[in-house]
């Protein structure tokens, strides 16, 4: 049964929301199926979510009222339970595990994330069969709980700069793990502080007096049984953060700590007993994992923004404020054009990013097949493209969530809105798994390389194939400016062409600026640095093009005319809003005329009005359960105010009618003055 429909029949629904829902122009269930992939998947997802939501074992107090230690403890309790229940129910499909886990932790991190998401997969991909025999089953059964310790206090992005050392001692056939400086202390790994008893540690390998670069080692850090840190190990929690309260991000300092030679992950590189180093075959193999993780972040960008939009749009339909027409009742705040302008482009963005996430996941599965057959040809492009898309979507979603929060006025600032929590949970994805600017520059490097290739007469393929068109333009460069403007602003396919032109022009401009700098200076790196703002712009334009293209491609597959109509509007809104925000690029490059840009501004506002009647159905279609939203403002039934009051009564400050600080501080003050 439709979870939303089930809630319809429960408590009385706010009259505004009921009216809005009745007036939707399309069947929101069909859109939910589209988002899930099929009606059957929607059914299965709801079935799995119900397993968690109806399970009293997973019930707990509102996390907003708990201290950090309590939140950590609650998360650990649920994680332990989750592992047992998954096995009890026999849920093993990755998507189904994901649904189950999302329902348990509701989009929040948990202390076993790194164990499940990094420690186990790394064992599978990088351990030898013997190592898997030793470690995998105990880890699978949570006798070993591990984390993945890469970043150090002084080093994140630049892996080669990591300082932790692993020095091979052939006499004892051991590696000596050591943290030589304060900056080399492992810092940030999730689950490291309090939870894990093992860690996969990345360290510079030294053998036979030579540094062989970074390698991975399985390091026991806590005593099994007592959970006390082992001698030579200093481990702890890095303290409070912006969010991630339930996660014990940790530090780890190793003082000449010895582990057996067999604890180096040796599926690819090896150290022989005598200390001889054997090189791995290809370093491209790790690309696959990165593409996978980035596809998850893109999906998370879409989901987090969709949650924020759901809350803000429902609230904006229940909240009435001010007068539009003198003497009339106060209107719903979503009737204000400025409110629509804040929220609807973000709603469209949520949908756009959802399709990007699906595309990346499918691509990952496809290339995994290729890799298994030894075909690595597509990997460099995918690696480059997904870096940029990770940055592009997480930056946009990050800003969008805050925009949603602020559109809820003061109440968005209360934790009862759920919006601060979504923001602080999401925002680290702009810096982890590759800092976004660095990611954009990786994409730029690929774009410039492709451009150079085209200039030298070779064709390129894949998403950058538009650069091939530049080679034709090289013959008559003045044609670009003189070309009659061909972009039709009401035609999604034509808008894709517009974005494509913008990307190609910005890639070309950045590449030319880079060349100018190179001609002026000798150092390649210096020139690159002095062009990096341009290069990031080019990458952003490229990613924007890819997102628009993927969204537009989605439209043709939608059968239902009503759903097609509303998605077509959202797609146009996404593309045109993007143009309005980057109008300078389109004008400067002669892609659009002044008059067309004026039309774009106008058309965006018309689309806002067109989307308005379907706003509620478009967020309902995301099908987030109230428990998952965790927001009083975003409740499905719209009964906001009475529930804000109920929520506030539980505030820790309200435990006693008179707070003890009155007796301790305020009362004595009166006596002193």
């Amino acid at each position: 049964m439709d979870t939303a429909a089930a809630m319809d029949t429960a408590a009385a629904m706010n009259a505004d929301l009921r009216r809005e829902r009745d007036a939707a122009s399309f069947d929101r269930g069909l859109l939910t199926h589209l988002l899930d992939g099929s009606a059957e998947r929607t059914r299965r997802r709801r079935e799995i979510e119900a397993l968690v939501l109806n399970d009293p074992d997973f019930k707990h107090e509102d996390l907003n009222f708990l201290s950090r230690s309590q939140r950590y403890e609650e998360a650990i309790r649920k994680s332990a339970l989750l592992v047992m229940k998954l096995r009890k129910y026999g849920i093993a499909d990755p998507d189904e595990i994901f649904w189950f886990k999302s329902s348990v932790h509701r989009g929040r991190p948990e202390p076993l994330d790194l164990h499940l998401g990094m420690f186990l997969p790394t064992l599978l991909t990088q351990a030898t069969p013997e190592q898997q025999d030793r470690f995998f089953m105990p880890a699978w059964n949570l006798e070993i709980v591990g984390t993945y310790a890469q970043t150090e206090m002084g080093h994140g992005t630049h892996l080669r700069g990591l300082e932790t050392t692993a020095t091979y001692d052939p006499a004892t056939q051991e590696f000596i793990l050591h943290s030589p400086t304060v900056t080399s202390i492992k810092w940030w790994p999730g689950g490291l502080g309090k939870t894990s008893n093992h860690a996969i540690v990345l360290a510079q390998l030294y053998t036979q007096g030579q540094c062989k670069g970074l390698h991975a080692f399985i390091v026991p850090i806590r005593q099994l049984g007592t959970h006390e840190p082992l001698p030579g190990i200093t481990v702890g929690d890095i303290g409070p953060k912006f969010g991630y309260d339930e996660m014990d991000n940790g530090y780890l300092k190793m003082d000449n700590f010895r582990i057996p030679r067999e604890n180096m992950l040796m599926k690819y590189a090896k150290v022989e007993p005598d200390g001889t180093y054997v090189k791995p075959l290809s370093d491209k193999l790790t690309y696959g994992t990165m593409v996978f993780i980035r596809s998850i972040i893109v999906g998370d960008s879409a989901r987090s923004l969709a949650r924020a939009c759901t809350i803000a749009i429902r609230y904006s339909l229940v909240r009435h404020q001010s007068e539009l027409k003198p003497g009339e009742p106060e209107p719903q705040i979503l009737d204000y054009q400025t409110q629509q302008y804040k929220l609807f482009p973000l709603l469209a963005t949520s949908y756009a990013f959802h399709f990007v996430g699906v595309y990346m996941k499918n691509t990952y599965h496809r290339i995994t097949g290729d890799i298994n057959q030894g075909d690595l040809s597509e990997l460099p492009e995918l690696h480059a493209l997904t870096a940029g898309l990770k940055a592009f979507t997480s930056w946009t979603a990050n800003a969008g969530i805050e925009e949603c929060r602020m559109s809820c006025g003061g109440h968005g600032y209360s934790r009862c809105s759920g919006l601060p929590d979504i923001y602080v949970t999401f925002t680290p994805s702009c810096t982890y798994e590759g800092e976004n600017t660095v990611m954009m520059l990786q994409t730029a490097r690929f774009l410039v390389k492709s451009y150079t290739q085209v200039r030298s007469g070779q064709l390129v393929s894949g998403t950058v194939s538009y650069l091939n068109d530049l080679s034709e333009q090289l013959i008559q460069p003045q044609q670009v400016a003189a070309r009659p403007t061909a972009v039709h602003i009401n035609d999604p396919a034509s808008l894709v062409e517009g974005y494509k032109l913008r990307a190609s022009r910005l890639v070309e401009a950045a590449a030319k600026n880079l060349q100018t700098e190179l001609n002026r200076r000798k150092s390649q790196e210096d020139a690159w640095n002095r062009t990096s703002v341009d290069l990031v712009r080019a990458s952003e334009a490229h990613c924007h093009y890819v997102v628009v293209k993927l969204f537009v491609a989605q439209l043709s597959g939608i059968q239902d005319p009503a759903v097609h109509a509303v998605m077509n509007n959202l797609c146009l809104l996404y593309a045109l809003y993007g143009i309005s925000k980057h109008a300078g690029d389109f004008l400067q490059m002669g892609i659009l005329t002044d008059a067309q840009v004026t039309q774009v501004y106008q058309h965006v506002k018309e689309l806002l009005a067109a989307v308005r009647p379907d706003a509620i159905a478009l967020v309902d279609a995301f099908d987030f359960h109230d428990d998952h939203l965790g927001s009083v403002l975003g409740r499905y039934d719209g009964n906001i105010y009475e529930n804000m009051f109920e929520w506030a009564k539980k505030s820790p400050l309200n435990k006693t009618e008179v707070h003890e600080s009155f007796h301790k501080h305020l009362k004595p003050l009166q006596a002193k003055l």
Partner: protein
Amino acid sequence: MAQTRMHGYFRSSSSRDVNPDLEAERKTASFSVERLTTILDGGAENTKTRRAVDAIIHSDPVFNRENQYFQTQNERYEAAVKRAVHVQEKIHQMGWSENGPEIQYFNRALAGELAFPIHLVFKNSILALGTDEQIAKWIPLADQYRIIGTYAQTELGHGTFLRGLETTATFHVSTQEFTLNTPKISAMKWWPGGLGRTASHAVIFAQLYVKEKCYGIHPFLVQIRSLRDHSPAPGVIVGDIGPKMSFEHIDNGYLMLQNINIPRENMLSRYSQVLPDGTYVKQGSDKMNYFTMIMTRVDILSREVLPNLLRACTIAIRYSVVRRQSELKPGDPEAKILDYQTQQQKLLPPLATGYAIHFLSVYLDEFCSKGHTAIKQGNFDLLPELHALTSGLKAIITEDCAAGAEVCRRACGGHGYSALSGLPFLYTKLAASCTYEGENTVLLLQTARFLVKCFGAVLSGQPVPASVVYLSAVDSGKCQAWTKMDFLKPDIYAEAYRHRATRLLRNAASKLQALVQSGAEEYEAWNRCTVQLVQAAKAHCQYIIVKNFIDAVEQLRNEAEIQKIMKHLCDLFALHGIFSNTGDFLHDGYISGDQMDMATASYLHLLAVIRNDAVPLVDAFDFSDESLNSALGSYDGHVYQRLYEWAQKSPTNQQVNRAYEKYLKPLFQNALSKL
């Protein structure tokens, strides 16, 4: 020298060596940091007073905020109450005046972490809205903290739109009392600071009813808690509204009133009163009260909002010269991250914004005192302009400061996410300012309404206030820059901003007019133009800020070195705005594509120039380490050591890990038998 002026004991860093990477930055400053500090403070005397206050605060353990980030909501609140009480004792002890300069420096040193700041708003509202007798009765009690007050205006269902407030105050001739009521849940007072647990009294805004007639919103002084044991008065339901994004030291509260009777004398009656027989009398003009609200707004901008952006810049820029990452040149040591152009482009524009807003707040202070002088002589002519100006500027400034601080936070990578960086604290405080004291979009539309009116006046040849006179100027329609150096000429970019502001306003106004002429009702036409109107109001405010920055730089003509660096910052601020809004400037061809390339080239070049003075430019703000409360931003730059030592003090490392015993051990115990 930066070091010698530190009075040793209150800057924790002075006992240590400075990180050489940070020291190197200070040695190459192109100007005297100390001199700039005194300019920012408004004179050497102020700098001296400020440092004296810093010294007093930071030498007193009660004011230590080292544990702040570890504290629960309850602990934060209690610590803030304790500090606020202690501040009162200090003020008493030192014999400082309530309105003296020391008070604002106290707040700065403690980054605003004090309880009951709304007590002051409560007092000011009595002073502004009360009769002389009411002032004489209540102010001494408030001064001595016999009563602690709050200002209860917003309700659960109403913030922006005051006329929509639902709390009622009904007058009964028979008892000579008002009865206050909260008729429904959405009418509960919600959000007032200090209301939840602290305040004994509140100025409450309610719809006044006399003999079944509604007279609109009026202020009433209501006791909500017992002065003996602080328990809520009968009929009063009061509490804390629960955890927020930040401001956990403040007990923002809710309040429900059930038939609360107060004497007739408790209606604050300077401007309107109810006579014993129920006759409603209006007297005088409440414009003075209006002016007080504007002054409060200006005060918040310069004392609460701006300093948090400056703190964020200080932290991020210092960290960015200590943090080294990746290689710029193969084989070289890892580069300071501030040497990356992309990092400069993140951090230097917010720094320039900080300076722009500093000079703007000086201007607004002057404008307000000019207004005050006029108003005292009964001349309210400046009020509409002042209102329109401060509304839009409040919106722009809070938005820019919040966004800038968040850029700073993210520019510190993972470590910016740690509470110990101090940056989450700064951002979340700034984020609140975007919705309190007037929601920003609503404020920009107020400015837009004023601008549309002025634009009409310009068209019909009538005089307009000084800040909008520019609307009547005629320009050539084309930017007059021929080389990229031309974009470093204030006349060139000021003119571009002026042109853009005028054009966007003209477009919005004519669209509005066209809609009305085509038969749309006025309110409907207005709503359909609001996106454009907001853009026009922003463009106006940005022009004002650029223009004011240019004027301020000009006035530094006796400070050659400082003028030079300020000029760079002014150029950067202006060009950053153009770079970020290219479409607005290109749209009607005012700036051509080639010119835009020149502007961009100048912009990027400035980043490299200002980079060299980045650290001295933040040092000049002269925040003590204690006020920054950041592991990343301390004066000595010993980032990693401090981060490590501080993290070890986290309660999560001090307490027994209960989760292990309860949940992990059962999971692990199989392992013993198998390994």
